[in-house]
């Protein structure tokens, strides 16, 4: 018994090391899951406060640029409004209850923390549960894609950036509708890879890539980027390199899109799977 104690005392450094290491790796693995843990939630709430203060400072620096972007967007929206008015001159029309058919709801939010230099990048937004954000909502900036909400706490939420090796998005070529799966290649914040486009699809460099709308998260037609180059891979598919239209280094305000009919879609899809 005494020699056992002596032995344990002698190797206590190694034992402690293993203990600490196992504990921290366990933490790491728990957090690799798609769903947040309470610990991350705590740290988000805690560091979110700090980041918001820092971000207040940062905002002043890019104020001019942001203003200009807003003005441009305003002009564009006004133009659209104008054109809807003009087509409205038909006298007899059926009343269209817009709220009944409304599928997507937009909420604006501000980014308080952002990273582009890791392999699994996340953003933090300054809105959360209380402002109506839920996990699985889409995040866009100026009509082009940013990511998907991963977890929400009371006043903050984390977003899986498109620049994350774990995120896959269903995307299609705008001009002919061939769709495939898009993922980040980990090689810089301006490019991604689109797979599973068949060889007979007619594509060219410069073609527009948009979201396909086949998942319940993203509406159809959100801009992702443009084809930069493509090559044949494994004989039957293209591997296409995409230049992303979102500038992840320069993001500040985003819109969060909630699908009001997400539950309905998920329900009916799981029913179909059950019947198989």
């Amino acid at each position, binding site marked *: 018994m005494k020699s056992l104690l002596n032995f344990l005392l002698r190797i206590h*450094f190694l034992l402690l090391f293993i203990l*600490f290491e196992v504990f921290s*790796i366990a933490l790491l693995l728990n957090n690799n899951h798609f769903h947040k843990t309470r610990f*991350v939630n705590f740290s988000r709430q805690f*560091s979110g406060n700090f980041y918001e203060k820092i971000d207040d400072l940062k905002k002043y620096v890019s104020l001019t640029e942001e203003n200009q972007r807003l003005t441009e967007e305003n002009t564009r929206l006004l133009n659209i409004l104008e054109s809807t008015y003009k087509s409205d001159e038909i006298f007899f029309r059926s009343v269209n209850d817009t709220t009944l058919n409304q599928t997507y709801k937009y909420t604006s939010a501000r980014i308080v923390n952002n990273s*582009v230099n890791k392999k699994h990048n996340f953003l933090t937004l300054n809105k959360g549960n209380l402002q109506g954000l839920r996990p699985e909502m889409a995040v866009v900036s100026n009509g082009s894609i940013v990511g998907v909400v991963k977890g929400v706490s009371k006043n903050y939420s*984390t977003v899986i950036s498109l620049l994350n090796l774990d995120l896959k998005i269903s995307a299609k070529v705008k001009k002919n509708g061939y769709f495939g799966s898009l993922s980040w290649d980990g090689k810089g914040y301006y490019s991604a890879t689109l797979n599973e486009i068949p060889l007979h699809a007619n594509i060219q460099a410069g073609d527009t890539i948009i979201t396909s709308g086949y998942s319940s998260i993203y509406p159809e037609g959100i801009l992702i980027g443009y084809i930069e180059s493509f090559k044949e891979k494994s004989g039957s598919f293209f591997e296409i390199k995409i230049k992303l239209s979102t500038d992840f280094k320069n993001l500040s305000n985003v819109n969060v899109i909630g699908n009001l009919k997400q539950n309905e879609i998920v329900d009916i899809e799981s029913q179909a799977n059950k019947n198989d």
Partner: protein
Amino acid sequence: MIKLIPRYLINFIILVLVQVFVLNNIQLGGFVNPYLYVLFILILPFEIPSWLLLFVAFFLGMSIDLFSSTIGMHTSATVFMAFLRPYVLKLISPRDGYESETLPQLKYYGGAWFIRYSAILIFAHHLFLFYIEVFRLSSFFTTFVRVVLSSLFTIFLVLISQYFFRRDRRK
């Protein structure tokens, strides 16, 4: 030993703040991220009890993780580095051992010794950190280049910081 505690406490806070608010925002070509906070483990006194060393490393890594929402990543790498520290110190000890009342810093044991000491530990830390970050071996070579470049950058910053310490002490 006791009188060193306030100084290390200040070191700790400064290093964590610098890491989180300055260095985490630096990236050169999407490849190079310096992690200066490991300096804290490097300059702990020779006589520190081994359990305290591991505990401090755990706490330091956890503080960085809290701010980067990467729970466990920096913690495991820093604990790993702290575990190696006594062995590295033994491996490269000068012929007549370490004198009491000295710290493992550049001004006590010279540039060559300090570079060797910090290079080994920083490389080990970065190797562990970057591979646990990507968590796969498919992009082995890219990750390795990142490890090497980032290590060089961190070593560079650590050396600069040593001259800061030196000037402070003379006053």
